[in-house]
């Protein structure tokens, strides 16, 4: 069984988001991590390796620096790492990103493709389902449990007020929730091996059956009209009153804002 996991390197927001003095986000000061939902997806794949001897390949698209997450994945137990990087792929929206990854995945054999539900920088949750569409395979999003049964995969798919137990014939794409599992740590031996391991690097020319018009900034249907680091909300009013005045104060605000 072959499992391919798509991961993204994202800025870390744990332990505090960092801000410039003017209140905007200081991206340069923030460390990068493997996106948490993707890490859960990787852990799910590694469990399939433990259980069924699945071969786990990790693919990422990004700057050359994104190689770091591949080495981390390999230190956790992934077998192969593929970095898709090329200047012409930059500025991609989710359409162009999913086209790029689909182009890379067409070179690989897979029974399962696992992606995280969404990345913590963009929060779109679009790339996984879009890859599945380009590849013509079923997608099961929001997976909270994954099992294999013969040539099929059985997945608990989370909704707001319920979950569905779904059965799909492989090949299939699954998007994983961080709640799926508790990802394992890298092992010291794994880290050692991972830093010696060879990472495969693919550029534009290695992508299969993708037109230039679907790649990078130029191939992105969505365009940014305006972007700003949001100025954090300033302090509002702060009052010190006795309890009954405090209650009156809150009631007035709730009425003013039509809450009650």
């Amino acid at each position: 069984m072959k499992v391919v996991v798509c991961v993204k390197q994202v800025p870390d927001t744990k332990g505090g988001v960092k801000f410039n003095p003017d209140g905007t986000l200081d991206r340069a000061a923030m460390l990068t991590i493997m996106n948490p939902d993707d890490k859960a997806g990787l852990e799910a794949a590694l469990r399939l390796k433990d259980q069924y001897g699945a071969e786990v390949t990790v693919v990422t698209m990004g700057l050359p620096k994104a190689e770091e997450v591949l080495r981390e994945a390999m230190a956790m137990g992934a077998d192969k790492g593929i970095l898709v990087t090329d200047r012409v792929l930059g500025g991609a929206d989710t359409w162009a990103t999913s086209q790029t990854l689909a182009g890379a995945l067409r070179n690989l054999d897979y029974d399962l493709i696992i992606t995280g539900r969404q990345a913590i920088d963009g929060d779109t949750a679009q790339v996984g389902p879009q890859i599945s569409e380009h590849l013509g395979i079923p997608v099961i999003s929001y997976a909270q449990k994954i099992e294999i049964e013969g040539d099929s995969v059985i997945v608990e798919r989370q909704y707001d007020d319920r979950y569905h137990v779904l059965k799909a014939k492989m090949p299939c794409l699954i998007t994983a929730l961080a709640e799926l599992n508790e990802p394992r740590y890298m092992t010291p031996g794994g880290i050692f091996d991972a830093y010696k391991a060879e990472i495969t690097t693919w550029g534009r020319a290695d992508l299969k059956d993708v037109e230039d018009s679907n790649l990078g900034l130029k191939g992105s249907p969505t365009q940014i009209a305006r972007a700003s680091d949001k100025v954090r909300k300033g302090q509002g009013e702060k009052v010190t009153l006795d309890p009954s005045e405090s209650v009156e104060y809150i009631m007035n605000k709730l009425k003013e804002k039509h809450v009650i």
Partner: protein
Amino acid sequence: MNLEEYKGVFVFAQQVDNKVSGIALELIGEGKRLAEKLATEVTAVLVGSDVKGLADELAAYGADKVIVVDDPELKEYRTEPYAHALSSVINQYKPEILLVGATAIGRDLGPRVSARVHTGLTADCTSLEIGDFPINPIPGKEQKHNQLLMTRPAFGGNTIATIACPDFRPQMATVRPGVMQKLEKKEGAKAVVEEFNPGFTPDNKYVEIVKVVKNLTDTVDIMDAKILVSGGRGVGSPENFKLLDDLAEAIGGTVSCSRAVVDAGWKNKDLQVGQTGKTVRPNVYFAIGISGAIQHLAGMEESDIIIAINKDETAPIFDVADYGIVGDLNKIVPALTEQIKAAVANK
């Protein structure tokens, strides 16, 4: 793609168990507002099995037209038949705008459909406008008018971006529930109802539903709650959360909590707000006895109105609170609950 062919504002009218979801009505309200600016109509796309009867409700909330795709394959939500239904509607009717709720259904359906019809999709929008793109003229670049400008937060709400889709149609957005306003219900309003069935032939992309497990508890997911009454360690004890339960009940809200409360074993993890819990954006967030660690703030500072009650006037929660009250929650909260009960009763 001839962009001129694409006309009208369409919304995906999500239904679950043959009940119209709140987001569907919100999207009709917002769609109507956008349609008026474009001098066009709003069409609701109703997809399901045996759902035609819901068209009147969509009309009552402002839909000018309802396209019904009714087929037994569509009984429970599944990605493929729903994506086929919606993309077939797009190919047949060519809307210039298509809005989908950013729900667990819409965030699966939207990307699949946008990939199938080859257009852009902007996720989790909180504001939509009709305007020019580029917003300010750029020499040598055509400025297009009457574009959908879609605004969304990213990076856990730390940045905001406005996105356009100038060269592809429809312009697609998923829209966060609870942000747009539904219109006042007009009993007896009628919409033009049209049935459309593109035919459903199961293939490899159809998955089998083995089982549907509904949550038996009535608890609202804190991410969906409009009003959250959130407590921290300052509440003092698990028993004392009764004060918050009462307030939540009186105001129609849901109780949530900080990480300290979960770590102390007072509440379950699914109620935790913050970086390692859930990110919430309710209309009103009460922070009661919560000091406001940065990890907590990251999970709730996007709330529309933040009301903080804390006895420590230096608590960081006051840095993000719209209305901060320095005082004893044990005295303020029960009295507030009584006042709210009285106000609601007098309505």
